[in-house]
């Protein structure tokens, strides 16, 4: 076990490097209001974060990450462009016997800059690469923006696209929806029965026949969705060729330069991804300009999809065998809009775990 003092020293070293790179050091409270985090991440976060009760402030969480408080602080009173760095504990529940720490230091770097997002992506990645050099880590990159652009470009109803986009971060449900919309999965028997019943009568009539009305969800809301189900049943399946491209995209794993060539190849068939692919190309150029070998850099189109659901563009991790990601990060433009009450700014950043860095250095020494 690496002693805490050594881990903190490693954290301080990394923080100093982030400040050197132009970041302003910031602090965040350990006790965060649970409401904001629950609204962002949903109930899943309860299984991972420590929730506690304050008699005055209500439900509070021990800080599960820094991104949310840093974004909030920036949206409330930050100047642009801005670079921030922070160092502190985060808290995550771990499964019994996993051997993983439930309290550990994170040191992070966040860039809020409208000018050239791809250049900012490359800046963050290259900075992390330099700071982690010599630890024999495996970098992996991805781009959730390409997947989202592909979904937006599908020739199907807006409702189906919205359903798919909502579940981009839940691969299991996403695939189930895609299978259904593409006609690869059979319609559940219950759904067929309901559609039959809806053919026989209006939603209002069926609701009335269902007995006593209880609950806050109104008859109008129920009828609206029932009508949407009928409309969806009449929507033709997503074309097989289009669906095949999307399945292909989900499983795309290749060195970045190869991945770009592949994506260029399928763009004529999925023209909607062209702007996202251009951004990918611009990022690779910016990465190459910083000395990253994009001919060997690993790219996985689905990378980062099971992480906290706010990354919506470039994502990256630095991995070592037998431990959690040593560093990870990505772009989260949409999050700034959610937390900014109307305001919006492109943002990218990442975190390093000094404890893992110190452990790797100890093993290397």
């Amino acid at each position, binding site marked *: 076990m690496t002693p805490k003092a050594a881990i903190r020293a490693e954290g301080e070293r990394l923080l100093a490097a982030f400040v050197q790179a132009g970041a302003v050091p910031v602090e965040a409270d350990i006790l965060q209001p649970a409401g904001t985090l629950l609204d962002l991440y949903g109930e899943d976060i309860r299984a991972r974060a420590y929730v506690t009760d304050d008699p005055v402030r209500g439900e509070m969480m021990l800080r599960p990450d820094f991104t949310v408080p840093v974004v909030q602080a920036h949206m409330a009173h930050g100047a642009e462009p801005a670079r921030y760095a922070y160092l502190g504990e985060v808290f995550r529940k771990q499964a019994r016997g996993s051997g993983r720490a439930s309290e550990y230091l994170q040191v992070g770097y966040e860039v809020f800059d409208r000018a050239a997002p791809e250049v900012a992506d490359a800046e963050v990645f290259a900075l992390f690469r330099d700071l982690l050099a010599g630890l024999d880590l495996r970098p992996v990159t991805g781009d959730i923006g390409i997947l989202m652009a592909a979904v937006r470009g599908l020739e199907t109803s807006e409702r189906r696209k919205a359903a798919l986009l909502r579940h981009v971060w839940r691969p299991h449900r996403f695939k*189930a929806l895609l299978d259904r919309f593409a006609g690869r999965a059979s319609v559940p028997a219950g759904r067929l029965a309901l559609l039959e019943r809806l053919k026989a009568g209006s939603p209002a009539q069926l609701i009335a026949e269902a007995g006593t*009305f209880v609950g806050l969800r109104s008859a109008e809301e129920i009828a609206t969705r029932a009508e949407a189900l009928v409309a969806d049943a009449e929507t033709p399946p997503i074309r097989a060729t289009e669906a095949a491209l999307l399945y292909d995209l989900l499983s795309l794993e290749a060195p970045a330069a190869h991945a770009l060539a592949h994506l260029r190849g399928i763009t004529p068939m999925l023209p909607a991804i062209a702007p996202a692919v251009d951004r990918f190309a611009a990022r690779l150029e910016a990465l190459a300009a910083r000395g990253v070998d994009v001919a060997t850099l690993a790219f996985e189109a689905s990378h980062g999809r099971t992480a906290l659901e706010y990354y919506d563009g470039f994502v990256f991790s630095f991995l070592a065998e037998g431990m959690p990601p040593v560093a990870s990060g990505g772009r989260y433009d949409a999050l700034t809009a959610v937390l900014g009450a109307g305001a919006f700014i492109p943002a990218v950043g990442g975190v390093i775990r000094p404890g893992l860095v110190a452990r790797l250095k100890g093993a290397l020494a």
Partner: protein
Amino acid sequence: MIRLGVPSKGRLMQDCFDWFGARGVMMRRSGSDREYSGVVEGVEGVVPVLLSAGEIPRELAAGRIHLGVTGSDLVREQLAEDEVAEVAKLGFGKADLVIAVPNVWIDVETVDDLDAAAAAFRKVHGHRLRIATKYHRLVREFLQAQGVADYQLVDSQGATEGTVKNGTAECIADITSSGETLRANHLRILSDGLIHSSQAVLWASRMAEWSAEDRAAMEQLAQRLGVRSPF
């Protein structure tokens, strides 16, 4: 001495005594009606500990009892997989943990529908769809595995079926055996909304100290009961 936790009252206690009795292990409460103590006859080295069924999982996890009889719903909700071992399913106390929605939700038959309804509900009402339950962990794990979003769990320790009518939840996840209370409260079970099929189970604690004598007594008991030994 093996400490065997058994429910201290009611139907569950009687069913439990009957199950052991049918296998030649006689169990009864001793002393006055109000005194929570008991005796075991027909096997050596076992002492009964009469407990509220709801407390048996905690006692197993703390290792204060070696064996315990309680519902699999309570154990799965409260304990980690490796804290206890299942010795035998006892075949009584059967009940299902299910998700139930208002019967007037004609558009919601499956978990998939519930997820879509939750998304629309949140847009209209500005808060996530509320599911009342006391089984937070089981329900959350079930919904997480299915990729459901835009819901929140609200705690309900009793009369959960009434929360929808009372306006504190949109739907519920609760234990039911016949479904009658659900129907009486105008609720209907989702066709794929079965989270856990519960029944009374004899559990062995992995957290308790098992001496050589305890292990020997356990072998004897397992043989008498016709069940697998947990070791």
